[in-house]
């Protein structure tokens, strides 16, 4: 059966272009990168390709042998290209859903829902950007580098990994003109202490006016602290178990500071990108 990338057509609200859509995509390739990670490239219809860096999709994963992922799985957009009609995800094989994704072969169909959530912002007053990420978080931040290049911002990307050869997307960041610094556990350059020194040095070298990070509670706390000290704002992409992915079920809440209060926000709707200062690690 040939898969034709299409949206599942439903009556749209009069005069409204749906913000997200459920679409049937076709697998172009699904190749291993770096051992535990895989890069999934899809042919996708235009309706789902008006994406912003930091947004995500909910993927309806196929069932691997003997396992039954039922809920969709959230995945950050790693790449999107409306002209080529392509969409990319970089994922780590961890459980039933991602094991299901790993079974996808070229020409297979994949039902995706998106783009979802609020992406990163990059207002005019943020010219010198510093990005700090580790592991699969680098997937989430990759499209940010392209955005920075398009907007003519300067970007320093600190990529943390267990071993230097496991740091992902380094070439991709470089291709978008970012200065890349790889830190890793092997030589202890990835400890919070070492990172603090490194980031303080970057701040000293040139005025950094925004941080971008994701996932790791340790990195978030580090940037909250440095940011508060220097008055540098920033954004973090958060994760939480999800069911609907579009804001209906309230499964995906996390706690955030809102002035003096602690409030719940939905990672899928108000997020996944939040101000670093409001996030609770």
């Amino acid at each position, binding site marked *: 059966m040939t898969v034709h990338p299409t949206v599942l057509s439903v009556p749209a609200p009069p005069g409204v272009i749906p913000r997200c859509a459920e679409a049937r995509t076709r697998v172009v390739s699904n190749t291993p990168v770096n051992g535990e990670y895989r890069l999934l490239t899809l042919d996708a219809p235009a309706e789902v390709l008006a994406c912003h860096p930091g947004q995500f999709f909910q993927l309806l994963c196929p069932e691997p042998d003997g396992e039954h992922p039922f809920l969709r799985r959230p995945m950050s957009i790693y790449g999107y290209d409306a002209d080529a009609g392509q969409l990319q995800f970089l994922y780590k094989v961890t459980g039933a859903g991602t094991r299901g994704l790993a079974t996808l072969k070229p020409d297979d169909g994949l039902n995706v829902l998106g783009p979802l959530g609020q992406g990163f912002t990059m207002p005019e007053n943020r010219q010198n950007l510093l990005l700090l990420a580790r592991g699969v978080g680098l997937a989430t931040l990759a499209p940010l580098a392209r955005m920075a290049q398009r907007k003519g911002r300067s970007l320093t990307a600190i990529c943390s990994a267990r071993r230097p050869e496991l740091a992902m997307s380094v070439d991709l960041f470089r291709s978008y003109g970012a200065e890349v610094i790889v830190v890793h556990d092997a030589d202890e350059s990835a400890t919070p202490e070492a990172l603090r020194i490194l980031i303080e040095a970057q701040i000293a070298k040139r005025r950094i006016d925004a941080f971008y990070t994701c996932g790791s509670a340790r990195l978030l706390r580090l940037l909250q602290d440095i940011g508060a000290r220097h008055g540098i704002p920033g954004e973090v992409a958060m994760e939480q178990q999800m069911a609907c992915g*579009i804001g209906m079920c309230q*499964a995906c*809440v996390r706690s955030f500071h809102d002035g003096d209060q602690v409030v719940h926000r939905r990672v899928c709707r108000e997020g996944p990108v939040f101000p670093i200062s409001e996030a609770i690690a």
Partner: protein
Amino acid sequence: MKDIPHPPVCDMGVQIGGLRLANPIMPASGTFSEDLSDVFDLDILGAHVLKTIMRDARAGNPTPRVCDLQGGMLNAIGIPSKGIDDFRDRMLPYWAGYKAPLIVSISAHTVDEFAQLCREVTLPGVAAIEANISCPNIEADGRAFAMRPDTTEQVVQRLRAETDLPLWAKLTPNTGEPVDVALAAEAAGADALVVANTALGMSIDVTTRQPRLGNIMGGISGPAIKPIALRMTYQIARACRIPVIGCGGIATRDDALEFMIAGARAVQVGTATFQSPTVMARLVAELSEWASAEGLTSIEEIIGSVGTPRGDMS
């Protein structure tokens, strides 16, 4: 008639007590919100059923609040609620922008609280009140009013006294006497019964040996509970005179038909929307196509049309 370009051959409208719905498809409480308007025009639905509200603002349960099951999911969201003021001041005006009737789901810990909330949501723009007397995620060990006929009768009677709006009672599969509970709700003055809420379940991660939900136990929804909800629909529709609205695991046209043939006058779709947010829009279209192809003049013709099995041995 005027804004429907291709008038369907079969009348898809169904009567639920005093309320006429344009078609039998509506969302289940807690699996629907204005956010779905990103995906399709919500006015094609037979009704809009909102997430249960409680009187006071509440945080809900600890995370993780959901997990996967084979053929379904487990949730212990726990009814986070912004409270009655938010409902009146923000939600009600928003939903007033739609034509589909608005069904407001309410719950409470005590009969008194329940009655007060019922009075407070009896407002213009509300088409009916759905009393969630069956949520397993509020009280310890999943307890709920609808587990017993006496507590059901008590609470429904009080709610009945507080509102002139159509009153729907949402029942639970977590009882050994679903028909007695249904009869109690009917006797107490309910106008319709929603059959049913989630079944109480649990899941453990064997690697960490921890429950997969922050709340330990939660409600099972999705295809796994369909045969239970269908059985209850059949039992209750035979025993009661008020309309039954089927709910539990409905994901396809045939699922919706199965409940209607068993005796449901309409159906609610919950978890299926998480797997496919467009599913209700497709169900509305497919059901109407099917009914016309079958040559029905009204979809109500199939309600309760279940036959008796041949029941032979050979």
